[in-house]
């Protein structure tokens, strides 16, 4: 019996150490963001704030300077929203329709297309970026909101289509047959039968896209244009531009603010979140 107790202690010790590992960066960010600069200069990074206050948070949100503009990162928050909402709606809508068409309409060469889509999910962005810059320039949408949205839809399409295709392919074929006998068409079946059956997979897709697009840095930096820079890009600018002394409390507060949206999505969505991320693994 003794060895069992030792085993339990070992398990909890391991879990405790792991928990510390996972929490340390956030602990540092939260405590530092609540300190004032003198305290940061004098004290150590692990100490709790003596006089916790949110002034660094307010500064990070609305008055920290990036270049001449001293508006904090709230502009980035708005930009990220403006990029994210249409991108998510468009990519999920198109992909679900697409997955449904590929799964249930006996299209020739569907497997080949799926194989290519799967390959598309793996292509490093770097191989596509420069030609995409030229293409969007030619269309006149480079550095604009429609431009970055189009790019997000393009890069979201392969994985989302596969998720939806696999979901619709797993439904009993009788449903389709019955609907066809009733004379329903492509869109009718989609609206009346398929969509009402897919709320869970829709949630998964939306979560995957919301976190993915919010956390994107590279695409936003290149395609969004200077008026629409997403929050991650503004955060990186903020942290790397200093005036006199580096204000660690403001930087860390800005970082927390940037992470807040996906973190809330994660906490609210529970296991859907994991399902979303893992469906990205292209289950064959």
């Amino acid at each position, binding site marked *: 019996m003794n060895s069992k107790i030792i085993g339990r202690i070992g398990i909890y010790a391991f879990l405790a150490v792991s928990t510390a590992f996972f929490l340390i960066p956030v602990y540092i960010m939260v405590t530092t963001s609540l300190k004032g600069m003198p305290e940061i200069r004098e004290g150590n990074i692990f100490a709790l704030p003596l006089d916790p206050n949110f002034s660094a948070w307010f500064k990070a949100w609305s008055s920290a300077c990036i270049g001449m503009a001293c508006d904090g990162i709230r502009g980035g928050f708005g930009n990220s929203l403006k990029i994210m909402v249409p991108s998510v709606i468009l990519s999920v809508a198109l992909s679900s329709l697409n997955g449904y068409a590929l799964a249930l309409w006996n*299209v020739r060469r569907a497997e080949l297309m799926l194989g290519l889509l799967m390959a598309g999910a793996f292509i*490093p962005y770097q191989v596509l970026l420069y030609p995409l810059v*030229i293409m969007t320039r030619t269309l006149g949408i480079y550095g604009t909101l429609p431009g970055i949205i189009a790019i997000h839809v393009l890069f979201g399409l392969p994985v989302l289509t596969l998720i939806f295709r696999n979901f619709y392919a797993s439904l009993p074929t009788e449903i389709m047959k019955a609907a066809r006998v009733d004379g329903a068409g492509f869109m009718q079946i989609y609206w009346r039968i398929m969509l009402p059956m897919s709320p869970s997979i829709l949630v998964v897709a939306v979560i995957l896209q919301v976190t993915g697009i919010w956390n994107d840095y590279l695409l936003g930096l290149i395609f969004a244009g200077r008026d629409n820079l997403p929050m991650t890009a503004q955060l990186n600018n903020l942290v790397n531009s200093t005036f006199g002394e580096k204000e660690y409390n403001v930087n860390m507060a800005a970082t927390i603010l940037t992470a807040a949206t996906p973190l809330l999505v*994660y906490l609210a969505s529970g296991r859907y979140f994991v399902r979303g991320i893992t469906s990205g693994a292209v289950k064959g």
Partner: protein
Amino acid sequence: MLSFRAKLPALVTITLTTVAAIGIMLVAISWTGVISFTKTQLIPRYEFVGFTQYVRLFDTERFHVAFSNLFIYGGCFISITLAFGFLLAIMIDQRIRAESLFRTIFLYPLSMSFIVTGLAWQWFMNPTLGLQKFVRDLGFADFSFDWLINPDKAIYAIVIAAVWQSSGLVMAILLAGLRGIDRDIWKATAIDGIPAWRTYLSIVLPMLRPMVMTCVVLLAMAVVKAYDLVVALTRGGPGNASDLPAKFVIDLTFERANIGMASAAAVMLLMTTIAVVAPYVAYSFHKLRR
């Protein structure tokens, strides 16, 4: 069967989405390939120079650093994350208290962007600000944790941050796998007197193979695309010691305006990716057909 007329909306949908997306990607890839054989610097100039850009690429020290880092980073990151994630899954599977709390804590980094992850760890690992300063202030003057600024170690600093971000994912996937395993094997192995760790390694792990494959693929994708994390954590430094191909390509494209050579490097990155994931895609494709 379905008439062409009935199928038409489906075909239109697929053409406008799948075919268009595949088309754009193929065109873009070929375009990059073509540019890699030209003299293009700031704007496209289709003056073909054969393999000149590739020759120069292979003669460039930084290219070799970036690619060998890709393998160091990929190897360490994937193996450590798998091992650590598997351990976490096993521990959580021991009917512990507050299971969901632990799960939440181990998984939350996954929701963070690499920029946030990079910044968070940058502060912790910064020798004049973070852990090293803290321990030295405690009186251990010789303590050193300088991975971030040590050219030989900087790439491992990136591994730490990446492991932090992704272990929870492996934990979640493998935990789901563990829960799906028949509990009876534990009775069976207990009767045979096989120790638990051996059961995990030689019986359970092989049963989890599909989940492990999923993890490896997910992690490998993250490795090839690793850019943001490097930018936020080390900016590829010190020097170019922690450079990775993705960053090398972006720097050459957008900062150096040497797009010909950047395209050559991108093509090399694509070939590496293909070599790594082609077996998996072929395997899944094969399964799809059946």
